[in-house]
């Protein structure tokens, strides 16, 4: 077995790349660590939203008619537009990473700006939807009202406002947390844009773009699930 060593000077020999942090042995190790770190973080996010999806599924099963009625009151056209906007933004993220890999700095910057633009459009439409719900007194709380709303497919039957309120509570918590993730994503992309502007990313080193992109895709995917679950209950 090797002798115990008395360390004198920490080794700094391998550091010619400023982006390589001191405790990593190679660029590859650093990149692999960052990727794995983001994947694990996304696993925690799955569990975070998972609790909400679990609650949603239970109440949807219990109060299906009320949920369908409440779901019909939100604007599926706006939600559908937002779905398209987010899918486009995922495309621009992929193109941004491709631009970095192929050293196209201008394209990289354009794609990042486009991504953020799509993100802002999404949030704007979301804000409009929230305002509509507020005006219609569909926000849970003291002024909540959901009287005489027909249950789709059951003529003459009306939704129980108490149960519809649970739908709207879940709607606001789920889309609200999703919107919060979008805002955080915009923050991350602002930084990525700044770093791209400074020319930090090269075909060899663009780990932050990939990691930030993973996050953005994840937030998109959450919406891909939220949209049919919240907007499309019993719509034909």
């Amino acid at each position, binding site marked *: *077995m*090797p002798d*115990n*060593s*008395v*360390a*004198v*000077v*920490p*080794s700094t020999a391998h550091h010619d790349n400023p982006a390589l*942090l*001191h*405790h990593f*042995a190679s660029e590859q*190790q650093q990149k*692999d*660590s960052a990727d*794995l*770190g983001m994947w*694990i*973080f996304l*696993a*925690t*996010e799955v*569990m*975070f*939203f*998972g*609790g*909400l999806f*679990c*609650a949603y599924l*239970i*109440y949807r099963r*219990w*109060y299906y008619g009320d949920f369908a009625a409440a779901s019909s009151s939100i604007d599926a056209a706006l939600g559908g537009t937002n779905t398209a906007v987010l899918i486009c933004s995922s495309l621009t993220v992929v193109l941004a990473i491709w631009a970095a890999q192929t050293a196209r700095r201008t394209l990289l910057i354009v794609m990042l700006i486009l991504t953020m633009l799509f993100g802002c459009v999404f949030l704007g439409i979301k804000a409009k939807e929230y305002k509509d719900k507020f005006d219609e007194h569909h926000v*849970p*709380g*003291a002024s909540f009202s959901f009287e005489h709303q027909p249950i789709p497919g059951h003529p003459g039957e009306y939704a*129980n406002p*108490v*149960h519809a*309120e*649970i739908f709207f*509570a*879940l709607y606001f*918590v789920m889309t609200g*947390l999703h919107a919060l993730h979008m805002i955080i994503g915009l923050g991350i992309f602002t930084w990525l844009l700044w770093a791209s502007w400074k020319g930090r990313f090269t075909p060899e080193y663009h780990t932050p773009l990939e990691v930030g992109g993973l996050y953005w895709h994840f937030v998109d995917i959450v919406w891909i699930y939220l949209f049919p679950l919240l907007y499309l209950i019993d719509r034909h």
Partner: protein
Amino acid sequence: MATAAVAPPVERENYLNKHYGVWSWLLTTDHKRISLLYLVSITFFFFIGGLFALLIRLELLTPAGDLVQADTYNKLFTQHGMVMVFFFLIPSIPAVLGNFLVPLMIGAKDLAFPRINLLSWYLYIIGGAMMLHCMLTGGVDTGWTFYVPFSTAFTNTKIVEAGLAIFVAGFSSILTGLNFIVTIHRMRAPGMTWSRLPLFIWAHYATSIIQILGTPVIAITIVLVAAERALHLGIFDPKLGGDPLLFQHLFWFYSHPAVYIMILPSMGIISEIIACFSRKRIFGYSFVALSSISIAVFGFLVWAHHMFVAGISVYAALIFSILSYAVAVPSAVKVFNWTATLYKGSIRYDAPMLYAFGFLGLFTVGGLTGLFLAALGLNVHVTDTYFVIAHFHYIMVGGAVMGYLGGMHFWWPKISGRMYPESWARLAALIVFIGFNLTFFPQFILGYVGMPRRYYQYPPEFQVLNVLSTAGATVLGVGYLLPMIYFLWSMRYGKPAPDNPWNAAGLEWKTPSPPTTFNFEQEPVVTWEAYNYEELDAPQHRQEAPVAR
């Protein structure tokens, strides 16, 4: 016996003396310094939680409720639980010893994300400050489980603030787990294969899995409770069509596996200590390693055994009962392998080993009474009695804290560069063991004969056992104060520690005591199996002197 390493005339540079000043600590990204930041802060919360425990035991000295009022008593046991679970037990071993040792044991210079590591300490401190503020301005009276609808619709205490404190501290826990998993996957030194990893690492890997997959669920549960309380939503309120059982399912989905966050790292420590002080390779290495993983997996499938009387179906209860028995199998695998390691070992009775022995006995009692509780019929009989209290304190205090103290003694020479006073340490280990049993064994009997938990008065016939328990708590308190005093003492007056005072295997012992900032001068290359004690002790490898006292 000669001292193994004579203290050099000039203190060599290490992580403690490289930089001085407050900011060199508060802005450090060195995992060893962050580990010490955690050590100081969790010790603080340990004593806060202990103070609440002391007040609880003083109140229960007499049958009448005479020391505090009922409301105050409710707050005492609530705060005791919240502080001990979320601010001491969960971070204790991973954040202190894990932080210090994971990179050292696998031959890395630091954790994969040093800045995130520092961030997680700040999150812990922010959460802790919120919890302190909450306690000082009124506290919470729901029990640490903050069950709905009491917590959302009835109590007037500071549920939202306490919940947010736990939410923030939870992210500290998630980030620590994330950091460990990435570090263990990506930062191992050449030759440090999975089958050569110390069992401490395996245990932390399993713990981290629970931290990253379980904690987010309690985070979202807290968000829902806070939203429900603040905005009067109906998600958990039966009056508004909500389901209070859903809360219990979500809560225990995290909070049962959380028990394994507390006990698994402790099991990792016990594996290290028993192998070292028996001078043997651990018996059944791969079984001990994989039992950690299977405890983590099974741990996620047993949560509803906390809900047998809550109104779940008998069929569901049966399934969860059987699954709860199943989780005993990997736990027993560990205990049997540890005892098999002791068999024909050259056993030494240093303080860490005394704690390990204490762990073996107390964890066995705690684990076996867990089987009692997993049995549906008996569970109904002893639900919400002191039997449950005694059971989980045998696991959390008798198991987790014994392991933590054993580990602190074992690695103190590495952490501080000083030896602790051995005879005092053995005495303290003995006091802790006696005090612990005196405190909690009577509670098994109390619970079995029907004393419920969370009451501040009780019938006079329970007094003798309660007095014994309170007396034990006092002894236990002395046992906890002693290490704190002599550890502090040893930092100044202890003998300088040699690099490897126990002649232990493991990469961490190949660094200087205390280690330098970057741990290893050169990247180590591992060519040996873990716990190669037979090889280490073979005559041609014997180093000059194995022990320094």
